[in-house]
């Protein structure tokens, strides 16, 4: 172990992706500690809301892997969120599968669904891909209602599922337990995403985003990578959907309209396109800002939301992550010029 660290040290000056700067590690650990402590000090309802924030963050991260890292547009991620949610609901309700086991199944099914959708999407670029995925998002509720699948999906009624209790007699409320469960899933998935992005695969995905032709010339199988990016992105969003189903205890076609897909997009942009921690900020935004807007004015809640959104884009045109980078850059410049 020590030997490998040494190698890393030697190569460190240039190997960007392999080593995360110390301050980032420190910050991550700090956030994690706060994350672990929070549920012990706030109401169950707040715990529940924070759980949803994490779930949205995972979904947004999924979208980010596709759009931010690989440059493929999607307005259809509500579809994968729905597939994940329904997979979990059906497995729990119809087959009595324990909730934790449904997550990998939901993930794999979404991986396959995303990969398959990614194949035809290969021929589409930019706006056209956005529109095709938009179509997917709009069609999703209708497909979920389809009478052919009603036996499984419960049709328009949806499926009500039971909220799990904490295991091993832990002295936690259901909400607290689900919070920690979600947090664990989030940490694993964020860490995996961080590694992926800084790896060979991540570079290939970004190369495709920036210049597909040149990427091909570098020997990157763009078709495969793009489809897989779609698959992995769907996997993330699908796992989020599965968690969402468990936390909300209910799935129905109306839960997965294209407004959800739009929310993910908003969350991604507000948090910062391509940024991993940004996904958390995006999740918090789409969770809390509509409520805030409602507090300002009930009748004009969405107008208030729109205005907030515009202001956010004005102040941070590249999202929270870009804003932080910009400020950090300015500070660095000032510091260096003072030296």
């Amino acid at each position, binding site marked *: 172990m020590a030997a490998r660290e040494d190698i890393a040290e030697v190569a460190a000056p240039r190997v960007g992706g392999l080593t995360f700067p110390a301050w980032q590690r420190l910050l991550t650990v700090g956030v994690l500690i706060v994350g672990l402590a929070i549920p012990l000090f706030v*109401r*169950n*309802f707040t715990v*529940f*809301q924070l759980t*949803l924030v994490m779930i949205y963050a995972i979904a947004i991260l999924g979208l980010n892997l596709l759009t931010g890292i690989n440059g493929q547009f999607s307005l259809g991620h509500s579809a994968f969120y729905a597939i994940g949610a329904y997979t979990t609901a059906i497995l729990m309700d119809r087959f009595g599968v324990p909730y934790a086991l449904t997550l990998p199944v939901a993930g794999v099914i979404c991986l396959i669904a995303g990969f398959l959708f990614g194949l035809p999407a290969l021929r589409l670029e930019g706006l056209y891909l956005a529109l095709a995925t938009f179509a997917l998002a*709009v069609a999703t509720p*209708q497909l979920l*209602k389809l009478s052919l699948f009603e036996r499984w999906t419960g*049709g*328009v*009624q*949806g499926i*009500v599922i*039971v909220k799990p209790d904490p295991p091993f007699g832990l002295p936690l409320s259901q909400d607290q337990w689900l919070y920690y469960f979600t947090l664990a899933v989030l940490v694993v998935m964020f860490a995996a995403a961080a590694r992926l992005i800084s790896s060979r695969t991540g570079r290939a995905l970004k190369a495709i985003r920036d210049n597909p032709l040149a990427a091909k010339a570098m020997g990157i199988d763009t078709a495969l990578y793009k489809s897989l990016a779609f698959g992995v992105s769907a996997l993330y969003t699908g796992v989020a959907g599965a968690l*969402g189903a468990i936390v*909300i*205890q*209910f799935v*129905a*076609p*109306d*839960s997965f*309209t294209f*407004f*959800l897909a739009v929310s993910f997009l908003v969350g991604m942009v507000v948090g910062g396109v391509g940024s991993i921690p940004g996904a958390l900020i995006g999740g918090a935004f789409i969770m809390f800002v509509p409520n805030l807007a*409602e507090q300002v004015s*009930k*009748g004009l*809640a*969405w107008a208030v939301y729109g205005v907030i959104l515009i202001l956010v884009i004005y102040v941070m045109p590249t999202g929270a992550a870009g804003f932080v980078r910009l400020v950090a850059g300015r500070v660095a410049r000032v510091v260096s010029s003072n030296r």
Partner: protein
Amino acid sequence: MTTRRTLLAAAALAGVALVSSPSLAQKKYDPGASDTEIKVGNINPYSGPASAYGLIGKTIDAYFKKVNAEGGINGRKITFISYDDGFSPPKTVEQARKLVESDEVLLIFQSLGTAGNTAIQKYMNGKKVPQLFVATGATQFGNPKEYPWTMGWQPNYQSEGRIYAKYILDKHPAGKIGILYQNDDYGKDYLKGLKDGLGAKAASMIVAELPYEVADPTVDSQIVTLKSKGADVFFNVTTPKFAAQAIRKAAEIGWKPVHLLNNVSNSVGSVLKPAGLEASKDILSTGYIKDATDPTWKDDAAMKEWEAFMNKYFPDGDKTSSFTNYAYTVAQSLVQVLKQAGNELTRENVMKQAANLKNVELGMLLPGIKLNSGPNDFYPIEQMQMQRFDGERWHLFGPVMSGEIGGS
């Protein structure tokens, strides 16, 4: 230490005082109720595809202002907390939890939509918080055995479907029925009611059943198909906008079937008038609430009272919309329940009183229609009367019928 002891003593004294005054029932409170206040929660789609229903929440809010202005209920003011869920079930869950856990309301009243209510039903019953008078006609909300904390209010869709079936079997036994329905729980409930009512004859009589989606721009294509399938009875299960479209399109292409329009969309002001009064002539529907735009009730005392309320407390409200008088009436029902609960404002007692409505008459209900509920009957309104539109107003005809679905 002293303060605490004093407090304890005071409390003991107060207890003695309560016991010793038999005129007042024992004061008992659950969260959300106190000597001065009753907190009522509500969830409504103020935004999103179903935002037209937001009017219901606004009207209820206005009505409770009136109640408060007139002294409240047994001296307590109603605090009405209404949140927007945009018709999205996950949001409904969040808002319900906020109301129960954060705002600590006594009960949730008139939460709107089948999916949203289904989403929170288990939670509400688990928490033992009343989910009272839900704003949907789906049958699943009147099941006291499984869900003792959930209760419907309006006549359920299946009952209404059965009433139409009865009418068809009676008047048009050889009719060829064409159905247009919204592809969701609401549409399907009506469909089921009609089919159950028709019984064995359903298969032979129904020549076409066509769904539409809320996102569809028009239902023109469906109307054309129904006509060319030779349907002469049209069962129109649509929400106001599509109902108006269907009425107009049918007239436009010269299709004149026996037109059965569901109660959801029989507002003269917001459906028949936009669709064209001439085109709406001879449409049949059922009613249980008086329509404000119907000249029949021009001099009705209850209607005048409602108008006075609207003018004073909700002047911006759309008086032509049936949502306003619906909301007014359902709010009155809650006031009735809370009045009956007296000083025992516990959640349990609220449910007990809600299931103890006996022949309650509310001004805006059609004559002869009363609120009735019992421990096994969680459908307070089960009666409706058929009516025919003459191009100007609805004319009630036939007996007050009951839906046959539900307890009693």
